[in-house]
């Protein structure tokens, strides 16, 4: 008996509902671009992107395609290829809501859900305009008698429960354990998500838990709801340790997407490949 559900890419796409709060991995954590392509084709609406802590071309494409109503992130950027044009345009024209955050806050909100507590405290941030505009964040005076300073304001961040998470991994084992290596932010994302699906380059015919050291590189199968083999599933983003980003393609995108028209032209080609 197979210890996990092997799904088609479209079956995973079907798990995403309009309005879902969806976990978005950073460019170094395995961006599920093939999945994203199918999601755009399906025409999903009103997604809320929760980026840990940033998104690049994945978020920009979803925004430009009209799939997104809200983004919570520390950054949306094309990195060395400049601003994320559809994101910038959408914010400037008020098409999407941006909940500006900062990297450690995005981690901490998921850690609160990981521990099933309603909030997580964080230092820093106070006095920034990030804090000023986040009505879901709260500041209390340090309630502790023996730790921290008296009268010290402490920022409290709400627990965030994701509806769904999809990321792309180099490989999974025959029992559905996902090899994530040092990309442990994927554990935090998975722990805080109601449903987790993984696209992967390949399924290994071994159990990574048979060896203590290889077990240590895994996100355990118990958090995973389904897996789909998708070759080159992160292209044109990098899959660290497997392939580099296709910088020519990202550059091409960065230029085309400067206008909505150029973006639509680019996407027509991209989606039909």
């Amino acid at each position: 008996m197979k210890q996990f559900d092997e799904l088609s890419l479209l079956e995973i796409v079907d798990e995403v509902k309009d309005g879902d709060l969806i976990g978005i991995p950073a460019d170094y954590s395995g961006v599920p671009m093939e999945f994203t392509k199918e999601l755009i084709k399906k025409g999903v609406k009103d997604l809320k992107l929760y980026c840990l802590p940033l998104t690049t071309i994945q978020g920009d494409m979803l925004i430009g395609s009209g799939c997104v109503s809200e983004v919570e992130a520390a950054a949306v950027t094309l990195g060395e290829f400049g601003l994320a044009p559809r994101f910038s345009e959408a914010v400037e024209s008020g098409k999407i809501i941006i909940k500006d955050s900062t990297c450690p806050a995005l981690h901490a909100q998921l850690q609160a859900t990981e521990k099933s507590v309603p909030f997580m405290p964080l230092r820093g941030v106070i006095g920034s305009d990030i804090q000023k505009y986040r009505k879901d964040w709260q500041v209390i005076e340090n309630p502790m008698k023996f730790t921290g300073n008296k009268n010290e304001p402490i920022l409290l961040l709400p627990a965030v429960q994701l509806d769904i998470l999809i990321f792309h991994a180099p490989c999974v084992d025959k029992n559905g354990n996902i090899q994530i290596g040092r990309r442990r932010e994927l554990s935090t994302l998975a722990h805080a998500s109601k449903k987790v699906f993984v696209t992967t380059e390949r399924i290994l015919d071994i159990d990574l838990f048979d060896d203590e050291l290889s077990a240590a590189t895994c996100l355990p199968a118990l958090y995973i709801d389904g897996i789909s083999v998708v070759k080159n599933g992160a292209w044109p983003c990098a899959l660290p340790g497997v392939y580099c980003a296709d910088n020519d393609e990202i550059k091409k995108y960065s230029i085309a997407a400067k206008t909505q028209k150029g973006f639509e032209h680019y996407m027509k080609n991209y989606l039909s490949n």
Partner: protein
Amino acid sequence: MIELKREELLISELADLLVNDKHIAVGAASPIPGAAALLVKEEAKLQNNRLRVTILHSNKYNNFTDGARELFDCAAQGRIDTFFLGGVQIDGEANINLVGTGSYAKIQKRFPGSFGSALMYFVVPQIILFREEHSPRTLVDKVDFISAPGFSDENIYRPGGPKFLLTNRALFKFNKQKKRFCLLKIHNNESLENIIKLTGFKFDVDDKITNMSIPNKTRIDILRNKIAYMVSEFYPEFADKIWGV
């Protein structure tokens, strides 16, 4: 005399600010700070001193194993001595803006966002602000959005904060008490008048204001023969542009 690129001069200026560090971390899209950190590490090695450099987006110089949050936890624990921050705008009180221009509700030009600045600025003892462009557009009287404030009230936990600001024209030191920058050095081709004209905020001028320091030959050799190749691993375009490697 050796022909020196402006970027090399900036790398050397930054390196001089790092010599007392034990652990330097460098964030995303920062080839010049990255090169400076590796340069100081190499120089420390020659003197048999240990210096740790963590460069995000490099596997080789990634000292972490606890995922993307470890940089922030590690900094909050006080284990990082120097970190670099930039800004779309930086103002005279060292507030930085990485979000956009115009009012937040009706933003004019949107930039990527604040990244980890809102924590790192509070907890890393030496934050070096680095922004190559030195103009009234980048160095402003008051930022449009505070991604991270330059100073905090007394009751706020804040072991860290701004120490220096380096642009391609000048080096400032931040005075925490006066909440004001003080000009320390200017680029060899610059005049004080021009710096004043190009700076959107008021600042003090150090009594002993000098030109930026020309690195000695040993340093230039290390930089060109060694650091250039190390940098090309994670900033290939930059290494190619500056050193053709």
